[in-house]
């Protein structure tokens, strides 16, 4: 699009700094420590799962583990516990990877199930998300240190998908539990720079929406979901 007033503005800054512009190629930022990479890096997969569970539950997040074979039944239970549909699902190949296609069909027989589909446009998708009692996403990572899931928005799973429904469930393979945000960001950074990820929005979500704005009293569900569930699939 457009860039306005840039040259005058940046030249003024360079004057104030008393150095010429375009120095960065010779002076890129050099990390001074590998602490971000080494923190919690020595944990085994089992330890990472335990850390993730402890830290998620403190937030609080409902933390569930399941084998792939029981994933569908587990999701059905979680949906029922939260009052059923309308359920908003993403349009994604993940259902096939998790062998959930049969579950998708059976769910639709008992609940209202809708799909986020970019081709239906902004208004229609926002309406589905606003009306949804619950949405289920497939996360890219679970961060053990902070009990955070990470998701990237795209055509089949927009931004508001994660924020407008009343309840939110995120499914993540145990193999995608990483020590902390460092590893997840490194992956996103690589994917974006390699042109493999065209997403315009990456979200790190650590439990339900909350606020301490009234007398520092912590309340949940101010804007986003009222509660959040992480489902870790242990055998993938």
């Amino acid at each position, binding site marked *: *699009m457009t860039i*306005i*007033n*840039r040259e005058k*503005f940046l030249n*003024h*800054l*360079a004057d104030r*700094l*008393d150095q010429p*512009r375009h*120095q*960065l190629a010779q002076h890129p*930022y050099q*990390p*001074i*420590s590998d*602490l*971000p990479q080494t923190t919690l890096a020595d944990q085994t997969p089992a330890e990472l799962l335990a850390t993730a569970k402890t830290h998620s539950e403190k937030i609080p997040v409902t933390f569930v583990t399941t084998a792939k074979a029981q994933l569908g039944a587990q999701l059905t239970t979680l949906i029922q516990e939260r009052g059923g549909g309308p359920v908003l699902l993403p349009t994604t190949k993940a259902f096939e990877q998790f062998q959930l296609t049969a579950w998708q069909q059976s769910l639709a027989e008992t609940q209202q199930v809708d799909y986020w*589909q*970019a081709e239906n*446009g*902004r208004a229609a*998708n*926002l309406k589905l998300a*606003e009306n949804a009692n619950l949405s289920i996403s497939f996360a890219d990572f679970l961060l053990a*240190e*902070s009990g955070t899931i990470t998701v990237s*928005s*795209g*055509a089949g799973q*927009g*931004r508001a998908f*994660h*924020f407008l429904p009343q309840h939110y469930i995120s499914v993540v393979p145990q193999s995608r539990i990483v020590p*902390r945000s*460092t590893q997840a*960001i490194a992956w*996103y*950074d690589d994917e*974006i*720079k390699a042109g493999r990820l065209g997403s*315009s*929005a*990456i*979200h*790190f*979500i*650590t439990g339900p*929406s909350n*606020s301490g*704005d*009234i*007398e*520092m*009293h912590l*309340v949940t569900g*101010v*804007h*986003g979901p009222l509660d959040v569930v992480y489902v870790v699939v242990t055998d993938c």
Partner: protein
Amino acid sequence: MGLKTSTKPFEERIAAAAADKFATASIAQSQDAQYVKREGARSELGHWQEWRKIGQSIRQHAINYLPDYLEEFSDHVDQRGGSVFFAQTPAEANTYILNILKEQESRHVVKSKSMVTSELDLDQKIQALPDTTVLETDLAEFILQEDDWDEPSHIVFPALHKNRDQVKAEFEKIGYVGDNDPEKLARFARHYLRERFLEADVGITGCNFAIADNGMINLNTNEGNADLVDSIPETQIVVMGMERIVPSMKEAEIMDNLLARSAVGQRLTTYVTFAGPKAQDEADGPTNFHVVILDNNRSEALGTEFQEILQCIRCGACLNVCPVYRHLGGHGYGSLYPGPVGAVLSPILGGYEQFGELPFASSLCGACTETCPVLIPLHPLLIKHREVETDRLKMMHGFKDTQMKIVGKATASPFLFKMGLQFKHFGMQAFTKHQTPTALNFFAYQGAMIKNGPGLIKGWTDVRDLPQPPKHKDDFRVWFEHHQANQGGATK
């Protein structure tokens, strides 16, 4: 409102803060609670001093190469299909933003918390448009808006000075029915704001960190309101201070960790988002995406001893440890940016005429410097401001210049000081009173106290008693000479 939040004189603001017992109690309570949470979160992370150095190195590098990073960032925003406007002044920024609203015939603007837009006084400017409404969606900012745009009192908890009954009263005006339970009040706000989110055509956000090498905006909120602001409306306008930039997402991630642990003692803020304009194949997110990069005198700090203040990541930790903020509250400072960071930043952004008293309103206890996650030397910068005001600008902020110069001369010259030691007792005679003291081992020498002293001493005796200084014969050095003579001891 803008940067300056009060036209009252400083002494009046201090008196008002002292009188507001609820605000004082809630600030004290929040400082004490935050202390435990913040230090717990840092200690759990481990190697905190090294993390601070990492944070400092990232922020200093970004500021040192600010023109290059801003150029790189704006190129990437452009490639993503967004627009970038560089604004030297609030007026330029406002003109650009209001033009967008007018051209698009925008009706409903939703905002997530942004201190920079408060510098611009943007809400009031939008309100003044005939056909456009603006709504703050952060719960605290929403509360302040409903109270006729009350001024914020903390950079992380803007409504810290309000109690639940005051919030209830404000919400009742817009239809709330119920008691003062924060859960119910928050739930009411959720429904009220949700309706307005869905009809919004423009979203305005601030920016925690701008990612130079991919043009994304990194936002941190616990409520998730920023995510609704950058998901639902067709248009998003990001307003950022020009210093709010990092090289890549990798550095942003480190800063987000330092921010969450320092601001509220969380491991990560609930919603940490990196986002730009909507991609072609996506359904939501802004189609029209604008970034306004504001200077507003920040460049005054570049290349000076004050440059380090631009490292600030607005975590508010320095407010949360500050004993002066503890008693003055946010309103006492009269600036949008209160606390130690505000006392350093406000004179740079708004000048010494407006904010020159703030650098003196510190006991230089150093708690701010000690807690800052990016190693800004806050209290030394307060001394630097004092130096600029006294030595360079010759502005007098309460000290009588001649008196302080005498102090300087007397403490630099052994002869004058010794003369002073011999005579100090006599000068004070007229002001002393003989009373039975309640503080023991304090008035040991004359048994007299000064309750209403002159000159430099007046400020002291306004608040506390001063012992009458010992007579010269009782001075330590006189005693030591005798002591040494009695011992036949070492030479001086």
